[in-house]
């Protein structure tokens, strides 16, 4: 079975749960940006959480399948159409061979996910099917989709081997795509390089997500942040926001030159010469992935213990989709 891509959309890529283990040589974890929505699409399509899905950004693809197929669309709110007829998001959809699937304009958020029963079966590269476009690794030929691409689809699971029986996801379980979000962060790394006022500004101001936001990172506009002046250590570069190039935590916040904080996401550059001052906790990384440009964002400080508690809570919520 295969998916025929008629129109590729703006930046549609194949993603799964990511490629851990190669960050030490600069290959990022990758994987679906909004991992919960991707997992929900898989659950609805009768897959496990591990199958590769299509990540659609802003403008989705138009495609057909060459045999009967089962798909599901989850994530940012969008009109789903089959042969021009509206179909629901967050629900299992049965397609006949040749049915044409297309999407309307996003009504919020940034990304939605299309899962197909059996999963997108591109080759596994370094343990994952995720597309790392900068390195041309994984996914479909290492790149975003183009018109004319034919994507192989894997064999559907036997009923009951892990795929959920769920064919719809009630509203209470779905993530929301708000225009105002509070993102929890753990201050640390190089936060001592900021003035006290600078750190307070970061943690109390309302930040606006700029259009400079992609799989690598998201840039926010807001007030300037003051770094402590210092004589720079050897090899660190001249600005007080510079450090000797170091590894970057995924989710870490850097503020080059004290302007426009950048939060690194799943296709993070693995290192560089800007001091990081806080890190978005793992439970809130999906929140960033759901934010559309213009989203008003607050960064709220939490402790490591609170971050771990939020993580456990998130895991519990996640398991409820499979229940």
């Amino acid at each position: 079975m295969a998916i025929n891509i008629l129109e590729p959309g703006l930046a549609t890529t194949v993603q799964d749960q990511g490629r851990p283990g190669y960050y030490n040589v600069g290959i990022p974890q990758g994987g679906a940006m909004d991992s919960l929505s991707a997992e929900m699409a898989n659950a609805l399509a009768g897959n496990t959480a591990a199958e590769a899905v299509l990540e659609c950004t802003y403008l989705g693809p138009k495609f057909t399948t060459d045999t009967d197929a089962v798909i599901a669309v989850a994530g940012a709110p969008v009109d789903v159409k089959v042969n021009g007829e509206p179909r629901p998001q967050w629900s299992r959809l049965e397609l006949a061979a040749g049915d044409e699937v297309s999407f309307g304009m996003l009504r919020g958020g940034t990304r939605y996910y299309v899962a197909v029963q059996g999963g997108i079966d591109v080759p596994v590269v370094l343990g994952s099917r995720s597309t790392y476009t900068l390195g041309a690794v994984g996914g479909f030929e290492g790149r975003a989709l183009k018109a004319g691409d034919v994507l192989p689809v894997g064999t559907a699971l036997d009923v009951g081997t892990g795929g959920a029986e769920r064919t719809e996801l009630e509203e209470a379980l779905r993530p929301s795509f708000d225009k105002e979000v509070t993102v929890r962060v753990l201050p640390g790394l190089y936060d001592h390089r900021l003035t006290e006022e600078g750190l307070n500004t970061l943690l109390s101001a309302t930040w606006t997500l700029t259009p400079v936001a992609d799989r690598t990172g998201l840039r926010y506009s807001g007030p300037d942040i003051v770094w402590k002046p210092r004589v720079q250590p050897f090899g660190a570069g001249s600005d007080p926001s510079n450090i000797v190039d170091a590894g970057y935590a995924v989710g870490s916040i850097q503020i080059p030159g004290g302007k426009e904080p950048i939060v690194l996401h799943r296709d993070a550059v693995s290192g560089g010469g800007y001091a990081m001052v806080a890190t978005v906790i793992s439970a809130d990384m999906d929140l960033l992935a759901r934010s559309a440009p213009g989203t008003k964002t607050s960064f709220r400080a939490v402790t490591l213990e609170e971050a771990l508690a939020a993580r456990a809570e998130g895991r519990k919520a996640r398991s409820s989709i499979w229940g």
Partner: protein
Amino acid sequence: MTDTAVQRTDARYTWGGDEFLFVEIAEAMSLAANYKANAMAALLTARSLPGVTDICPANASLLIRFNPDILPPDRLQTEVRAVEDEVAHSSHQTLDTRIIEVPVWYDDPYTRETGARFRKGHQRPDGTDLDFAAEENGLDSPAEFIRRHHESPWLVSMVGFVAGLPFMFQIVPQEDQLEVPKYLSPRTDTPALTVGHGGCFACIYSVRGAGGYQMFGIAAAPIFDPAQRLADFRDFMIFFRPGDIVKFRSVEEAEYRDIQAQVDAGTYTYRQAPVVFDLQRALDDPAAYNRELLERLDGH
């Protein structure tokens, strides 16, 4: 040289959210700090702790990714501190590694053309990156800078930023280090395999893309091969590893083209030899030690 052989001062431990532990070994770059980062990474890797997913040594720091559901943060920190202690108290500061010859066409037309497109806003708008680098280091000419760039070996102090990009630190006393500020405003384009320089670090861009390092030349052979066509990439698509020692060799256009033809034919292999890097000897008498390293490349 102001370095002391072993970085005996304690590192600084701090959390990058609930999945990353960051260990700052020193604020300043030095061979000793980098040695400690690599040595800690090697020992930690050997411990194969369940729940540790990535161990990323950097220039003067170490970043560790872990799954706190499997390995609680406190336990990880205890393990890493034990490893730090082990490195600090080991009597022999050596690293099993290799020396690799990297052919470079310095002052090539590709980086020259790219540099010309980004003159506006550059520190030296009317010259080239090499002119600027020579002046910044008080050298008579770009040719003299190029000579200094390839005459002594470099240590790969970190691999990353993007897939397979090596950062390199010249194995010479601090006062002899080539230092060049980065671009004031980053370029949106850099040819793949550009040999760049920012601060005290050299790099080779593994893929085409944005960049802020000054550009001096272009490496003749790939360092990142996702298709794994060449023999040097049969085991892994990325060539460099932290701790590798690099000797640049200046080649002219004819040899550059010849190497490219070998790459196209799938027959090119890097000239390399195994070495044991000895931190103390590199710090005590870098000139003599570098000569010895380079002899290993010639099979002595």
